[in-house]
């Protein structure tokens, strides 16, 4: 019989794999590791790189120490090139690796709420744990509070709540936007959403809150009408809306989903943003392309947490901005990056008061408080029993001269 090429290939592959394994033998240094779990490829790549940089800077400033423990930082990527965004299989794999890496005590992440819903239950069932995860960007309410059937308990099979986040949830953003709309004197609102988890969540929260405040919602459905991100234009949509004569159009969604065309057509068919007000959530913040549109002028944006220019001055927050600029030569991409450092701050505080085990860090995290003058975002980092942050600040911005300019700050009680 002639030699089977399959066998040769298999043996070659096995040998190669083995030699790689042996080459990569690296010894542990005894330090505790905190990991970040972010999408480093695709549209969020810059944001994630900036977040990792912010955390590295924070660690450098603390001399890589938390209390008496030496700290190392490890980056995980939860996206793949084949998908071009966060990848569910990658999230599952990372979760397993966090648990398997014996020196890891905590995870900073994730950026996408969907990914968190895969990782949190696995970290929750860690036999040495639970292992904690603190997110800088998940805004889906279901992760921490009753939202859809079975939420949030289904993410915590052992009952231990091992998840925290330093930004507030979509429902708060929606209701803050509704309060702001009322303060503008708006009576009738048409609500649009991008048909995605985030956009629908915000639009639904806005609709509910606006109704409770006595505003008239002209659109049908709990989250308003969905826009088709593949449509060439929105003439039909806005002609229909124009007939209803709204005072405001609220858009729950992200700019990536053909938001540019949507904004242009809104102004084209409904008039400028002074005549018919226009408002979006933080899915539209931080996009230079959006701000460059002449049609964006006068549009209102809301943002969970504080925008960078609204961080309180004089304390750690201002210093951190200056240090970041000095270290990397550019400002952080958006405040989500700085919130990443804030999440790491909370984790490091918990580690410093723990016995260095995952369980110890989990227990310590429950009582973590970072006072406002020490926090890199300038507001107190204190959490409720669900793991949600207590300071529920929502910033309202207005687009003026191609810039996001501060308009108002709303604090949800």
């Amino acid at each position, binding site marked *: 019989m002639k030699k089977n090429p399959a066998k040769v290939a298999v043996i070659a592959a096995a040998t190669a794999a083995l030699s790689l394994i042996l*080459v990569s033998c690296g010894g542990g240094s005894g330090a505790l590791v905190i990991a970040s779990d972010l999408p480093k*490829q695709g549209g969020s790549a810059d944001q994630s790189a900036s977040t990792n940089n912010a955390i590295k800077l924070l660690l450098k400033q603390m001399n890589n120490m938390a209390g008496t423990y030496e700290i190392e930082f490890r980056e995980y990527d939860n996206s793949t*090139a084949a998908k*071009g965004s966060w990848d569910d*299989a990658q999230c599952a794999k990372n979760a*397993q*690796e966090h648990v398997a890496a014996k020196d890891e005590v905590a995870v900073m992440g994730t950026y996408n709420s969907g990914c968190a819903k895969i990782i949190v*239950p696995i970290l929750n069932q860690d036999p040495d744990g639970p292992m904690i995860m603190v997110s800088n960007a998940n805004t889906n309410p279901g992760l921490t509070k009753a939202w859809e059937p079975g939420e949030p308990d289904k993410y915590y099979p052992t009952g231990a709540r091992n998840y925290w986040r330093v930004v507030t949830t979509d429902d708060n953003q929606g209701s803050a936007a509704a309060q702001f709309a009322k303060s503008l004197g708006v009576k009738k609102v048409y609500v649009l959403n991008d048909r995605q*988890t985030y956009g629908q969540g915000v639009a639904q929260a806005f609709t509910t809150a606006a109704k409770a405040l006595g505003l008239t919602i002209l659109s049908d459905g709990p989250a308003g009408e969905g826009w088709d991100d593949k449509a060439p234009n929105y003439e039909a949509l806005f002609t229909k809306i124009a007939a209803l004569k709204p005072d405001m159009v609220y858009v729950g969604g992200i700019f990536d989903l053909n938001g540019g065309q949507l904004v242009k057509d809104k102004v084209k068919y409904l008039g400028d943003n002074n005549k018919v007000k226009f408002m979006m959530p933080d899915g539209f913040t931080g996009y230079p392309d959006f701000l460059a549109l002449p049609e964006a002028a006068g549009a209102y944006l809301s943002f969970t947490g504080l925008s960078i220019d609204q961080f309180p001055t004089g304390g750690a927050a201002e210093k951190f901005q200056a240090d970041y600029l000095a270290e990397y030569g550019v400002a952080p991409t958006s405040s989500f990056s700085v919130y990443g450092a804030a999440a790491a701050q909370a984790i490091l505080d918990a580690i410093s008061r723990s016995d260095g085990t995952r369980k110890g860090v989990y227990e310590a995290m429950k009582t973590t408080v970072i006072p406002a003058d020490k926090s890199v975002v300038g507001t107190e980092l204190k959490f409720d029993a669900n793991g949600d942050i207590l300071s529920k600040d929502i910033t309202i911005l207005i687009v003026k001269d191609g810039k996001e300019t501060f308009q108002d700050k709303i604090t949800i009680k």
Partner: protein
Amino acid sequence: MAKRPISNVTLSNRKWALGYTIAGALLFLIYQFLLPWNGLPDGIYRGVYQWMPPAAVNESLVYVIMALGLNIVVGYAGLLDLGYVAFWAIGGYCAGWFMSEFFYFLNIHFFGSVGLDRPGIHINFWMVLIIGGFVCALFGVLIGAPTLRLKSDYLALVTLGFGEIIPQVFFNGENFFGFNISNGTKGIVIVDPIPVGVKNLGPFDFGWKLLIFILLAAVMVFISLRLRRGRLGRAWLAIREDELAASMMGVPLMRTKLASYAVGAFAGGLGGVAFATHVNGVYAERFNFAISIFLLAMVVLGGMGNVWGVILGAFVLSWVNGTGLVAFGKTFNSQFGTNIDFASFTFLLFGLVLILMMLFRREGFLPESRLKLVLNEDELDTASEAKKAKK
């Protein structure tokens, strides 16, 4: 015709089973017993987790199952399918529907792996596998039927359409004529664990899950190899090589093509259910066109029509995509003190590999002998003509 012993059921055709079992058992032993063993040197433990973590092996096996299914449609029957991800989606949502609390207003239990008090539909994993497989096979036939009269590019376009439509239905499925069939982009999260008689497999039982996935892949290998040898398989090959000639020789085109769609889709169902248990959820965002192309690349790169080639292709590509390049980047950066983001070069690498393969080895890593002949027909012809001329 004289009755001869059926030649394709000889021992040598079953020899693969032995090799496969040994390889599978070895993988299982390594990941189930060796890896958690306390005496294992720390370096090897880290090495394995960096270069070949258990979850990556399991994910690769899911890709193997899918690629084997696609191989039946593309590799055997020669019907270019650019929308295979649709079957993955349907299989995945079968798991989402029948193995979770998604239909929270119902309370149906059938040998499920969770307590009877839990709302939703909870059917046993093994049955859901079969359900998923057959639902997909049904959709395979439904999708296949209108495309029967089309060939090559036109067929590819229609399959592309289906591959876009079905995931879009799930994507927007939160309000499907008033019903929520998919929970939209929020996905269906937390799928029931796999019951194996004595216990339910938790998130850290990858060894056992690995064994199950190896078993499922083995089923697909068996189906592929046996069908190929049989009447149906030979009819597929005949269609692949010359549809007109095949129909003239009495191959029923419609039945044969539909069979290939059905069998191929069946694998998509198995893989979809397996993948849902692997990630513990179903997300609509996964099912995009890029994944169809990725699967097709596995088949083409590995060797269209050759089961072992396809397995190799699936392993290599999914490994590079998920683990390999990142692990290589880490090692390279720490070795040379650089800070290069290797993962961002994945597409460049894929593109380069595809171009090189098409230039130098069109038939794939482990080509099917028959296909190799077909692809090199011209060269062989010119060679033999040259020979003749010499004479």
